[in-house]
């Protein structure tokens, strides 16, 4: 489906991509990981037809540079940094929907599922939204149409746990009909979302591996944590995950999305000394 052949890109004598050969098949969910400057964003921009390059990039045999509208019509893209657009939210949705041949209502529905009421913010400037709201809207624009390839750069970084759960559900709905490329600095952020990991370093592919992970995107874990003593910072962190506590605030219970388990444990690990008991049980599907 997606093919990179001897892909190379140089910026002012610095070789950012160095002869990348890569095939991504239909239905694959690829984590593109690597440190800053590894070449992830450049690779994505080549796929989006935004950079000139040596070598070839094709999607279904089409060059994104020469067949922009045909190729980009199949790709839903979520950037890492939201663009500082001054236009109102409604206008942005209408613009994207008109170009992609999608219904604005469908985008608004996806946004609503993510907890964003489009009708309430339709006249607000995009640039004036909070980081999380911008991210939700860009995700809604990418998922609210029939894109066969989803290219996402740190898509869930600014989302609260509740929105992340819904985001995972939305991705799960697209598992059969979409190929995904999810870029991140850290594997633990995206490991549960993917079935293949590609690590980039200095413009080359350092690792290309399949992920044998039993985690399903829609799974839920029931979690119970018993604390030795009350700690306001930890209580605040758990409240952010929509956990509820006992009267003495020593026993906390809540639900964690399956793909978020690693991230959740990362939060808990900061307060390990406070934890007297911890259980995570996957709910039967």
């Amino acid at each position, binding site marked *: 489906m997606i093919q990179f052949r001897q892909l190379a890109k140089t910026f002012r004598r610095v070789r950012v991509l160095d002869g990348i050969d890569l095939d991504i098949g239909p239905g694959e969910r690829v984590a593109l990981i690597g440190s800053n400057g590894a070449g992830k964003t450049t690779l994505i*921009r080549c796929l*989006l*037809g*935004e*950079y*000139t390059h040596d070598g070839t990039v094709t999607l279904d045999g089409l060059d994104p540079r020469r067949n*922009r*509208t*045909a*190729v*980009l*019509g199949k*790709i839903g*893209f979520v*950037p890492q*940094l*939201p*663009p*500082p*657009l*001054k*236009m*109102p939210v409604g*206008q942005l949705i209408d*613009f*994207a929907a*008109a*170009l*992609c041949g999608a219904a604005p209502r469908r985008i608004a529905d996806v946004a609503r599922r993510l907890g964003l009421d489009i009708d309430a913010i339709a006249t607000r*400037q995009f640039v004036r939204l909070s980081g999380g709201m911008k991210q939700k809207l*860009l995700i809604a624009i990418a998922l609210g149409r029939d894109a066969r390839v989803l*290219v996402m750069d740190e898509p869930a970084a600014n989302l609260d746990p509740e929105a992340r759960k819904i985001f995972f559900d939305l991705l799960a709905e697209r598992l059969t009909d979409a190929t995904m490329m999810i870029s991140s600095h850290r594997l633990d952020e995206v490991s549960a979302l993917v079935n293949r990991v590609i690590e980039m370093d200095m413009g080359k592919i350092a690792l290309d591996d399949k992920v044998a992970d039993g985690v399903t995107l829609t799974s839920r874990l029931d979690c119970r944590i018993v604390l030795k003593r009350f700690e306001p910072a930890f209580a605040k962190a758990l409240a952010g995950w929509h956990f509820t506590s006992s009267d003495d605030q020593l026993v906390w219970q809540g639900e964690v999305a399956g793909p978020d388990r690693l991230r959740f444990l990362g939060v808990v690990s900061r307060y390990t000394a406070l934890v007297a008991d911890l259980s995570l049980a996957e709910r039967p599907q």
Partner: protein
Amino acid sequence: MKQLWLTAKLDIVESLRARWFQIYTLVFGGIVALLFVFGLTESRVLGFIGLSRLLVTYIQLTMAILPIFVLITTVRSVAGDREAGVFEYLLSLPVSLAAWFWGKIIGRYIIIFTPVFLAMLGATLWASWQDIEVPWGMFGYYTALLAVMALCFLGIGMLLSAIARSTDVAQGAAFMVWLTLLLFLDLILLGVMIQGKVSPEVAITLALANPLQVFRTAALALFDPQLIVLGPSAYVILDLFGVSGYKIFALIYPAALGLLSATIGYVLFRRGDLP
């Protein structure tokens, strides 16, 4: 075609919310208001009186302000959008590069021409209301001249935006272009000619090639094509072309220059990295 108009509309919506547009509108609306307040329609200078006096002053001021305003704001917003990641996102949507580039030009053209024209139209309507005689022929030609001036400098601005990779470089280049055009105005060419450093033919060619000088000559040629008003090379040019011929040249040449610059800008934009 749909993509073109969508992009044009997008650029209009973005510009309407930008601070530069509010200042731009205020400047041109303010100029007309001030000209009325200072009673310019009552005074007579070099044969101009009434609304014609106001219009000729307005177009002279516009010629001084509009080029640098259009150049700087165009390169700032286009190169700035590229730097800020606007291009990365919007060009990931299925829009053709031709529709994007030319749509942006159309949108921006509407945005920069409308306030300048509306200010002049407002002055004319006010004059009609006050029973001041309106020189409609002059109004029509100045409208065309403003339209061409906006197109010329917008095209140059888009070319600079396509060449420069950062806002700072684009802004510096825009300023240099404007400064160079100012340096080759008729009155400065006169000094060089007097010193015998260039031949009159070279000075006239430079004046003909300089869109700022072309606008200046065309704006004044309608009224008092005297040496003292026009400057030497403009006087010779007018003598060669005739008033009608020069009026046509003053519309065709800058428009062609603007379109040519924009076309070169488009070719460079298409060939290079987009964000």
